[in-house]
């Protein structure tokens, strides 16, 4: 019965996508939650991750690239934060516009360095190609993607739940009293969190590159699902982001077959429905962002 | 007006309860506020005064209990609905339109203006009633001559008075004041005292206050909140004598020193 097997495979595939979306979205949300900055450059940094990997891979191999490229992106983020910093406490618009400008600049920089032609990155040999396990036929690399995504999500969870920084991130930008109580230098925390968020974007970029191939514009499309995932899941909610990611992943995966023409719109539909039903997203508490 | 109306409380609170998470802030609070009286709600810090005030003004919704205004159940009305019923409030932490001049601040609060809220064409300045009402209020709060100064450039004292003025411009029938004197001293405090005195002849006033001298000298009736419960209520004299009140206040006095 091929239909059932196909359906199962599609579901599985939706989940893998969802995990990837969740990674992108979490990096985005760390920054959003902690300094109330919509990091528009998230997509560009995502792309940058891929390009760094492209540059590193021939010399150090894929695994090292996977480790190093995001660090490079993180550093870029670190630098960006020194600019973004000036927008804290002002109308959120300023942070948004600053990163918007950064996104344009980064995309053009990529164009200058690598040109507007596309590139492809090949995954390590042992995950190249598909595999057949019983009725299940699937791509080896995507299994690796799922594993890496889970590891990353686990790491973020640990960061949020088991470190003092996590507490601050969850408390959000406003509760600086609590930050002082913990005797932590807020400026440094923000800088660190920004770097971490961009690191997540970068590593997602590296992971996605072998599947989606590289073009300077790749980031633009990658960041939109992240926005939606965050709003659906509820700003500031770890599990919300994961749930949202999986929902968007499944929805866009399956709708490709059911309503291919509208499959892009499906996630917006999802967004609208969720908002009608729960204005703050699935797991969002009444957040400072509304007050 | 008829006798029944004179006796019936303007605002009445029955069995009000509010908890945040597990922590109960207000429990079974019953209050009555009589017409054309100054009623004060006092209590040490953390007694639940502000929460109570937020429930009265509709910023928060109670877990239990009901709030009646002139016999109408307003428990679940939004702040703006209550305001349109004639319940106007002032804020403890100054909440003015800082880029607006004194005149604009007051004018936008006048009901005549509110009724024209969706008028997109005639200049706001052309609404006569609003202009006159605003001018009157500004005289009342002793800011005549500074009409065209932006609120952010006023002195703190003047801003405090403007805070009340904006509330008054709403032509309240019930005026709720959240610590009107906080940080106030000298001349502005006197102006405020006289103002409230005069208003109490025509208005029903509910005031939350720390400044005992202010409360004792002005209010007809005082309710004391302690740890979310009303522990006493009565005329100033009675409250001054009330042992329990002294106890809890001395307690807080120590508490505040320590803090």
């Amino acid at each position, binding site marked *: 019965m091929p239909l059932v*097997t*196909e359906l199962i495979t*599609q579901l599985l595939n939706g989940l893998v996508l969802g995990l990837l979306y969740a990674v992108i979205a979490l990096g985005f949300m760390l920054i959003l939650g902690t300094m109330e900055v919509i990091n528009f450059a998230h997509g560009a940094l995502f792309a940058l991750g891929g390009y760094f990997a492209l540059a590193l891979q021939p010399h150090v191999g894929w695994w090292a690239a996977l480790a190093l490229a995001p660090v490079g992106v993180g550093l870029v983020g670190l630098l960006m934060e020194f600019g973004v910093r000036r927008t804290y406490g002002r109308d959120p618009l300023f942070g948004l516009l600053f990163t918007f400008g950064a996104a344009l600049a980064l995309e053009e920089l990529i164009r200058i360095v690598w040109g*507007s*032609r596309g590139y*492809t990155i090949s995954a390590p040999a042992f995950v190249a*190609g*598909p595999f057949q396990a019983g009725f299940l036929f699937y791509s080896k690399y995507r299994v690796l993607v799922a594993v890496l995504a889970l590891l990353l999500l686990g790491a973020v969870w640990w960061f949020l739940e088991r470190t003092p920084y996590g507490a601050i991130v969850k408390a959000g930008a406003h509760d600086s009293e609590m930050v002082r109580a913990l005797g932590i230098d807020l400026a440094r925390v923000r800088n660190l969190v920004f770097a971490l968020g961009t690191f997540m974007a970068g590593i997602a970029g590296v992971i996605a590159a072998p*599947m989606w191939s590289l073009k300077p514009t790749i980031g633009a499309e990658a960041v939109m699902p992240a926005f939606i995932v965050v709003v659906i899941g509820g700003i500031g909610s770890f599990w919300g982001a994961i749930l949202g990611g999986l929902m968007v992943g499944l929805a*866009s995966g399956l709708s490709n077959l059911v309503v291919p023409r509208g499959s892009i719109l499906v996630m917006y539909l999802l967004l609208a429905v969720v908002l009608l039903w729960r204005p703050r997203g699935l797991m969002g508490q009444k957040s400072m962002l509304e007050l | 007006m008829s006798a029944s109306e004179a006796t019936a409380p303007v605002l009445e609170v029955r069995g009000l309860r509010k908890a945040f998470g597990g922590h109960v802030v207000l429990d079974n609070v019953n209050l009555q506020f009589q017409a054309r009286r100054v009623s004060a709600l006092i209590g040490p810090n953390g007694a639940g005064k502000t929460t109570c005030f937020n429930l009265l003004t509709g910023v928060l919704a109670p877990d239990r209990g009901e709030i009646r205004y002139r016999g109408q159940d307003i428990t679940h009305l939004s702040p703006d609905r209550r305001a349109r019923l004639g319940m106007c409030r002032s804020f403890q932490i100054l909440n003015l339109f800082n880029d607006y001049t004194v005149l604009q601040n007051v004018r936008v609060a006048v009901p005549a203006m509110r009724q024209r809220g969706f008028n997109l064409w005639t200049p706001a300045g052309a609404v006569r009633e609003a202009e006159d009402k605003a001018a009157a209020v500004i005289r009342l709060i002793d800011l005549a001559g500074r009409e065209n100064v932006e609120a952010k450039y006023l002195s703190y004292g003047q801003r405090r008075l403007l805070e009340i003025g904006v509330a008054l411009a709403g032509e309240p029938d019930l005026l709720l004041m959240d610590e009107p004197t906080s940080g106030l001293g000298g001349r502005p405090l006197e102006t405020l005292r006289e103002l409230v005195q005069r208003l109490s002849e025509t208005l029903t006033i509910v005031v939350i206050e720390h400044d005992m001298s202010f409360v004792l000298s002005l209010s007809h009736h005082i309710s004391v909140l302690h740890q979310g419960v009303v522990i006493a209520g009565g005329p100033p004299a009675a409250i001054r004598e009330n042992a329990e009140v002294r106890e809890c206040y001395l307690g807080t006095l120590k508490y505040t020193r320590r803090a």
Partner: protein
Amino acid sequence: MRNRSAHGTKGLTRRQVLKGAAGFGAGVGFIGNWRWARAQAKKPILIGLTCDATGTFADSGQAERRGMILAIEEFNAKGGVLGRPIEHKWEDTETDASVAVRKAQRLIERDKIDFMMGALSSGVAAPLSELAQRYGIIYFNSNSSSDTVTNEKCQRVNFAWDANNWMFANALGPLVAKDLGKKWFLLTHDYVWGKNATAVTRDVMKKVGAEEMGELFIPQGARDFSAQLLRIRSVKPQVVIANMAGIEQTALREQAAEFGAEKDAAWVFPQQDFPDMVTLGPKKSFGYFCTTWHYTLDEPGVKEFTDRFRKRWANAPIPVPDNVSCNGYLAARELLRAVERAGTTKSHDVIKALEGHVIKDNFRKYPSVIREWDHLVGQMLYLARTKKESEMKDKYDMIDMMSAVPPEAASPPRGVSTCKMQSYAETPVYGG
């Protein structure tokens, strides 16, 4: 690197001048630049190049621009046309209709260009040709393979230099049906070009008696095609016709390799831009496709042209001429030749000189002809597939030409054309 090399020599000096001017402050640079453009726009023949440097077709856009510039420089070396030097002013149309329209208006209104050429996406070509028709200025749609611009959207001033979907599909159809099988599955890029391509594919299927196993739309901006690939695997067609372009196509092939889908069926990409093949490399650019030209062809003039091109664009990202840059070159060259024949830049005369003209030295086996009834450049096609890495002489020698389809067989007959060309009376006279 592309951009340093992509400017004409004049473009370079101009930019240096401008950068200098800008150095003194935007205001100075600004007025300086604008006035400069006006001062220069008079005497020489000025050709406006509307080539993308941003967006989906950025690299192809630059490729065609290189071809055009080469042709223009060759004419200047011979002393120009009608004793006038030839200038070119380039605007980045960003693969975007409304940007293209704005910049074209600027070229026409401010820079007073005499001719305009350059387009990859039909989304740019269609509005530009409409705009050109309004002014009566001649516009060469050098590389858009959409059918609409030579059918319902055809214009008196517009000439289409690339082969179009109809031609690709009709050239491929019989071969595919004969050699690869008759169970076809369609992937349609969900925008006007893609749907148009699938429509003509369907007509061809009827002709060759192929059976449609199903169709899936590929939304624009979609990055993940595993769903479609898995579907294809479960449907088990013999042939997959993928009417897709741009990054979606490269990403799809990337993932097809990932899922081993290239073995599930024979893949056919009717429209294949060479730059995309370079992106993918020989391993991943599997499948069959149609092309109009490649520098590896063994035809008269190809070698010389290729050498000239390589010399001029030694450090371009793609230093060899491909179908895109060859179209650009031929378009520019034929325009200037037509001006020579007409003895004027007056639009009507030049159009007359172009219509029905036969291009013999087109570096192909059979000559091309500029058809007067729909202004399509009727030309031959090559059926091709990617060379095995072992057979490649260099990294650009990727195309294995399987067979040649002569123009009369490849080009749509007059009967199927829906073009209603404006009369000369309806077309404003431009320039001269």
